[in-house]
């Protein structure tokens, strides 16, 4: 059983490292996941979980993952949007857990847009 003691340890640990997170810095990258009825029905919950997991596993201190409502193209959900400072917003469509992880590897870590998964490639 996970205990409150463990939560206390997490707290101590977090306080030691909290200054390392730079989500508000100039290089702050934002991943936004569409979580309205359409997104949830299409499978956005595991996509969001995969994004959070990948960001935390890779220690991407400048990357934040947030939820939003309906992005407007319900038939292409799950949709995620990636905002890299100084670059145009990139919209990825028909996401699943593996595709979301790939977007993080290739686009966010290696700075190379995964063109075939973008809304443009889907022919919207």
């Amino acid at each position: 059983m996970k205990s409150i003691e463990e939560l206390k340890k997490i707290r101590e640990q977090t306080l030691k490292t909290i200054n390392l997170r730079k989500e508000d810095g100039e290089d702050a990258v934002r991943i936004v996941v569409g979580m309205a009825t359409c997104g949830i029905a299409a499978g956005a919950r595991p996509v969001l979980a995969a994004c959070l997991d990948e960001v935390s596993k890779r220690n991407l201190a400048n990357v934040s993952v947030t939820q939003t409502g309906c992005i407007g193209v319900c038939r292409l959900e799950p949709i995620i949007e990636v905002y890299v400072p100084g670059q145009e917003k990139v919209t990825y469509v028909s996401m699943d857990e593996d595709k979301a992880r790939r977007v993080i590897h290739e686009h966010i870590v290696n700075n190379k847009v995964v063109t075939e998964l973008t809304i443009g490639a889907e022919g919207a």
Partner: protein
Amino acid sequence: MKDLSLSILDIVMNSVKAEASLIEITLEDDGNLFSVHIADNGCGMDEAFLARVTDPFTTTRTTRNVGMGVPLFKLAAEQAGGTFSITSEPGKGTELTASFEQNHLDKPPLGDMAATVTTLIQGSPDVDFSYRHATPKGEASLDTRELRETLDGVPLDTPDVLSWIQDSLCEEERMIQT
């Protein structure tokens, strides 16, 4: 929606949008009837809006005129021999109850409630959630007000805290599974 946990996630997002500061999610399973009760202290709805809220062409959005969340949840309950009711008072909040016949062929599976609660907390770390799920085997529960006290300033959406929430709730849910 593939399972009830996804519907619940969707419905509770309405409470978040209504700027609730406390949202209570209660699931009760007495072996025959499964009920979902959601109560928030958000902005509430006036009588006219409440009367139309289960209509799929009712929404607060201004960009489109469809809102499928509540109608889909109501349909799921009624298809499984259950009932659906919603009450609301402007400025006070909204309460919603849906029941399902536990052994009805068309009752959707519950799905992953730990993931739903974790997703809600991640999306709205400043809102308080009180979750309770009772089955004949026992009870799973989580209250962010208690966690906040232990965390003393550390935000609930810290990755390690979210993992802890998901893991501990997952384990509790497993223990009360019928």
